[in-house]
């Protein structure tokens, strides 16, 4: 207990300097935590994906469609439980910055495939019955202030024209890892309209979503689907939902890597600040260390005094930083809700925060400790003047 008291008193001998250093560490840990959370948000879609869902798309690229007739053939493959399909609609609500993902899907199978989208029973039936109806996540409904029964108009980018939809259901996520910003409506509504206006786009499906009976069948079913359509006009590529989402993340890998590098840089910056503080502190106290040595204290004891002080300072800063991370994440999430539907602090981030603080404390103390330990007693005493 005594040693803790000494460390604490030592650390706060120069209140201003220590206060500033702690503030610096707080900011750095805060930045580090935010960046880690940002990287996690990038992978949120991957984390939320289920092992029993497969995605089938045209093997050329996502921009090419598949015939709607493939659905029946896929359903006959052993191991397939549910087949749903949809198209990326890409509509714009009023202006481009109001972005949210919007799809045309086959509603019954889609909701069966995604049990994590929770809809009240009456809204679910209302959505099924109304061909012009749509369901949307709680977050965008709140953001735009829509109410059940409201008509919402999207401007088509892929499918020309103004499209009217009626809000019939508001879904919530089963847990906070679920994307609550999706907008989906009846695929039939899209298809019937497109038959009139742009016939070449009719009866075309952007992707099939397939639910398999169990996770260990996923690989065989995927192979079976691709084999079925090999050498046809539209060859398919089937992946697990996880691999599909990872593919998307991989395309923006350069940015994720940059963020990760930057999050390490912030630790280096703060290491420089703490090392500077410790260097100044030991320079001022060199005479005291000489006295301690005269009294018979060994190198390890002096070293542990300095390391301990460094640790006290960084630990205080780290705790404050962690405490501030939560409100900061809430603010950033509010600002970037368009880009990242899921944004939350993982436990792993907290562990990394603590580890970073420990590393900073240790490295910052190395140079000052060496100097304090090496000083000869007579020389140190002379410096006291």
């Amino acid at each position, binding site marked *: 207990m005594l040693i803790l008291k000494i460390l604490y008193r030592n650390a706060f001998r120069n209140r201003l*300097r220590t206060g500033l250093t702690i503030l*610096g560490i707080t900011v750095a840990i805060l930045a580090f935590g935010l960046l880690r959370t940002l990287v996690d948000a990038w992978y949120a879609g991957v984390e939320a994906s289920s092992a029993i869902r497969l995605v089938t798309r045209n093997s050329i690229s996502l*921009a090419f469609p598949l015939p709607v007739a493939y659905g029946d053939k896929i359903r006959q493959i052993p191991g397939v439980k549910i087949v749903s399909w949809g198209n990326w609609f890409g509509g714009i609500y009023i202006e481009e910055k109001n972005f949210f993902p919007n799809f045309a899907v086959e509603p019954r199978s889609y909701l069966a495939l995604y049990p994590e989208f929770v809809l009240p029973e009456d809204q679910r039936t209302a959505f099924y019955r109304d061909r012009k109806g749509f369901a949307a996540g709680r977050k965008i409904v709140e953001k735009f202030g829509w109410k059940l029964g409201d008509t919402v108009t999207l*401007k088509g980018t892929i499918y020309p024209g103004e499209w009217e939809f009626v809000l019939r259901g508001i879904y919530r996520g089963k847990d906070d890892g679920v994307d609550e910003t999706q907008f989906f409506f009846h695929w039939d509504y899209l298809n019937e309209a497109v038959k009139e206006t742009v016939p070449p786009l009719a009866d075309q499906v952007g992707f099939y979503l397939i639910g398999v009976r169990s996770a260990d069948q996923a690989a065989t079913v995927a192979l079976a689907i691709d084999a079925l359509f090999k050498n046809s006009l539209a060859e398919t590529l089937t992946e697990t939902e996880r691999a599909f989402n990872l593919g998307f993340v991989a395309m923006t890998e350069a940015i994720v890597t940059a963020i990760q590098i930057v999050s390490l840089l912030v630790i280096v*910056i*703060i290491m420089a600040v703490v090392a500077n503080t410790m260097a100044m502190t030991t320079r001022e106290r060199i005479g005291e260390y000489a006295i301690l040595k005269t009294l018979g204290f060994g190198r390890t004891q002096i070293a542990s005094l300095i390391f301990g002080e460094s640790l006290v300072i960084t630990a205080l800063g780290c705790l404050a930083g962690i405490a501030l991370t939560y409100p900061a994440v809430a603010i950033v999430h509010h600002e970037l809700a368009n880009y990242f539907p899921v944004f939350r602090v993982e436990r792993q981030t907290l562990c990394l925060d603590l580890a970073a603080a420990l590393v900073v404390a240790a490295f910052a103390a190395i140079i000052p400790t060496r100097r304090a330990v090496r000083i000869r007693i007579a020389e140190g005493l002379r410096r006291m003047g």
Partner: protein
Amino acid sequence: MAIPFSYSLRNLLRRRVTTTLTAMGMALVVFVFASVLMLAEGLQQTLVETGSYDNVIVVRKGSTSEVVSGVEREKAAVVETQPEIAGGPRGGKFAARELVVLIALPKRATGQPSNVTIRGIGGDSLALRPQVRVVEGRTPRPGSREVMVGLSIAKRFKGTGINEKLCCGMQEWTIVGIFDAGNTGFNSEIWGDSEQLMQAFRRPAYSLVIFKLRDASEFEAVRARIDGDPRLSLEAKRESAYYAEQSRVMAKFLRILGLSLTSIFSAGAVIGAMITMYSAVANRTGEIGTLRALGFQRRNILAAFLLEALLLGSFGGVAGLFFASFMQLITVSTMNFQTLAELAFRFTLSPAIVVESMGFALGMGFVGGVLPARRAAGMNIVESLRAD
């Protein structure tokens, strides 16, 4: 009389470890600040240089990128009758009908597939883009299953060397050339014959029509006519404006990310500077008293310490920019959110970024130095002399 400049400079040089550590912290912040701005600048420059001011592209109304657009043959023919179109090098109108589709190709480095733009060219496509130069091989022959690839694609994607074959749309495409389009988006594309590609991908419509204006100022007239024609439901955009638009979301994202990061980081570095300057003031209490006793005014002391902090900031700024300038050697290749296609661009250092970064570094020095300098200036002569 002012305290000489060398006093501030020498003070910094005297305490090397502390000065270096503090300047290093600032240099890192400036480095990150400059790098992010360079990245956004590079992205924008690449896309701005891709389009020409007097080229006009016509896409389906409401489409956000070429990939989702569609222009049927008869509509394309109507567009090409506009009187404002310049005369082309082959006689006739200076225009081209193009197809743009995405295909997935594996990257060399990771083997992961990424989306690549294939552009079906025809008519005067090449003459409309004078930036495109063939550096190896030749251009594909019209009406054949031949393609040429951009330099960035040839470097980054598997199986894109000369005489290799690309397989897509149940056809094989022989690569007969590699082209360099300088610092533009075309460098991340693959070009082939539009009619052949349309058959292979079973596309009944072109993606866009592009033409050159005989006079750049006639754009408004032709835009009004095309946008207003109810038969077409197409819209005309200047090529330069179209590409500038494509960089908007991504550049904005990079800027927001960069600025919020650096504003947090800079707090750390400012605190570092403040610690250093406070201790500089504390260590020199006696000296300050002497200076005051010699007749230097409070404002001279304030200026000397502020100058010291600004010098510290400028060390950090210069060092940060020095390392950031090496980033220009790096080319980033990533997916553009707006087109979902791969785009390669370089970190680009512009004079504006140099000025902004130095200003930022000096700002950090100033904010870190102002409180300690005020403390130094506010000291009582007698008490500070006694402290020595």
